[in-house]
């Protein structure tokens, strides 16, 4: 019976199919990929992103407060597990872009400074999607949101770089369009003691305005245009995960309704920024990113 096969599958993959997320949401996709790498001896703490609906479906112990509580509850859980002699359990703290980059930004920084033994994940759909698509500090330049109806005027905050400046053992960017890369990074993070940070941009068809069927395709374009480059910073040293043949940024922008209002010179500006970032990343590869 097909439904029996699937019920068994959901137990194995540690996440129940049929979340309350939008069709094409990258949230449940992220968690299914991640949980395969993390395994059952994991506690997930976190809240905030729209993709949080996916967290309601995971089959490992899970606890959340509000999105202004990122990394802090995990700090407490981590201490309690030490008190119980259960440091074998992986503690994952998760937050959306609004949580990690804005309202709980100080908390993430503090947890990094304390070198808390957690994997802090940012599941970034580039706006406050849960409350109906409002701008966050991680919304990209030029993007439409309900609070930036003529396009966001400021740049996307570079959280991975900021966290790396705390000199934590491991920082990485990842993408659900490259699941094996994401899983390898999570497996690596599991084995490291101290603060690990993995930042994944996930597609949001509802907020970015595109056909849900294109969810993975659009995410892949983000990586292939170097808008969302994949790299690791291990013990402060930068290592590129992929060096794709650079596609023009317009391919990525044209695929999403949220960039429909961009003017010619704004697109050029975005391309110039992406090019500069690519140059800097390639120049810094193998070198220390911290001072």
């Amino acid at each position, binding site marked *: 019976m097909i439904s029996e096969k699937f019920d068994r599958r959901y137990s194995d993959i540690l996440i129940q199919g049929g979340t309350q997320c939008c069709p094409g949401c990258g949230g449940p996709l992220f968690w299914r990929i991640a949980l395969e790498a993390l395994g*059952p*001896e*994991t*506690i997930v*703490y976190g809240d905030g992103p729209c993709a949080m609906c996916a967290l309601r479906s995971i089959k*490992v*112990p*899970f*606890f959340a*407060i*509000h999105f*202004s*509580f990122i990394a*802090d*509850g*995990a*700090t*407490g*859980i981590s*201490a*309690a*597990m*030490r*008190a*119980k002699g*259960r440091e074998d*359990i992986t503690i994952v703290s998760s937050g959306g872009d609004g949580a990690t980059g804005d309202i709980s930004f*100080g*908390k993430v*920084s*503090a947890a990094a*400074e*304390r070198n808390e033994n957690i994997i802090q994940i940012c599941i970034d759909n580039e706006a406050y999607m849960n409350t109906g698509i409002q701008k966050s500090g991680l919304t990209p330049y030029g993007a439409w949101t309900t609070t930036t109806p003529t396009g966001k005027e400021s740049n996307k905050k570079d959280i991975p770089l900021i966290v790396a400046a705390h000199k934590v053992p491991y920082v990485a960017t990842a993408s659900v369009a490259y699941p094996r890369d994401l899983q390898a990074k999570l497996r690596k993070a599991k084995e490291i003691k101290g603060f690990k940070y993995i930042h994944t941009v996930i597609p949001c068809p509802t907020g970015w305005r595109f056909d849900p069927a294109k969810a993975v395709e659009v995410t892949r374009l983000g990586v292939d245009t170097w808008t969302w480059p994949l790299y690791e910073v291990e013990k402060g040293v930068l290592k590129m995960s992929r060096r794709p043949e650079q596609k023009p940024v317009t391919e990525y922008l044209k695929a999403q309704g949220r960039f429909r209002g961009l003017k010619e010179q704004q697109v050029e500006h975005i391309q110039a920024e992406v090019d500069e970032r690519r140059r800097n990343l390639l120049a810094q590869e193998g070198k220390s990113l911290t001072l």
Partner: protein
Amino acid sequence: MSFTRMMEGNEAAAWGAKLARAEVVPAYPITPQTELISNLATLIADGTMKAEYIKVEGEHTAMAAAVGASVAGARVFTASSSQGIAFMEEALWQPPGRRLPIVMCMVNRTMGPLGGLRPDHTDSLLQRDLGWIQLYCENSQEVLDTILMGYKVGEDRDIYLPVAVCYDGYFVSATATPTTVPDQAQVDAWLPPYRHEWYSLLPGEFKMPPPQSFIKMRMGLEDALQRSKKVIEAVDRDYKRRFGRGYDGLLEEYNCDGAEAVIMTMGSMTGTARDVVDIMRAKGKRIGLIKMRGFRPFPTEELQRIASKYKALAVVDRNNSFGSAGGGIVSMEVARALYSVPDRPLLLNFHVGLSGTDVTMRQIEYMCKETLKAAETGKVKKVVDWVEAHDLGEVM
């Protein structure tokens, strides 16, 4: 081994947390709580206390980490004051709502910008509606004892509530009085290890309270608070049996036999009030003292039971509720509690000691005299009286 010596409230509190075997202490410094946490850090660093002190970056995180640790099965202790309590307010809703038995010291300090670093009770009373048990201590000894009792009450499987042990900054936190620190083995025999039956985050044993309607959660919380009254009293009696010290539960009547009028105080000024009442009693004045130890749950039934013995009751409010229905926070709750009592006493309300100004014997004498006058004449001269506005002179 039990020992006795002069000890400030902030040191007594640290010993309380140590004896209770708190396992996780997430805390952020703020005057006048600071010595409490540095004392704890020292006890932990030198191995006297086996716990983890998390040096968080702010009070909101302190309470959040406390919640995470408590859900994950560790006994948690923390402390804050004033602005810090306000800063963590969002997080303060979590322990009562989730029924987590965290014990926290609220080292009372006035709220800014209306004062400095010295105590009044507005900071803790501001949080009265959240569902925390709130107990107010008079001196270092009571602080230590109340922390131990707080864990016993909070972790009762029929209760599961967080407890705020409140005490005045400076007047208790930094004033040394003789304090007995009980023997650890004796405390261990009385206070078992923490085990919350509703929660586990261990893989394979994951447990959370079942989903409930919001109204059921709220009624459940209110119910637990009401049930806790008897538990607070029972634990107090039991503590007295085992350790030799008790505090009469939620309310204490002091030198009230045959009194016509009573004043009711909270916190450190109670110590001074005891002396004033004794002096006035010796002169034949029929004045007594009620110490309000428990503010939450509010001791409604007990107050209703004893209040009709007196002709006048004065509530001394070391707090503000601006624009209120009439007077300070405690007096308004007292008025509500006594509303339905047919032969209720006349109610007076005094504001004193705000922003931590000294509450002098002279001021307490003034309040007692006004209350006695009301009992005599059957009239209240002033419903709400800001005592510090009067020039009463220094010496009683």
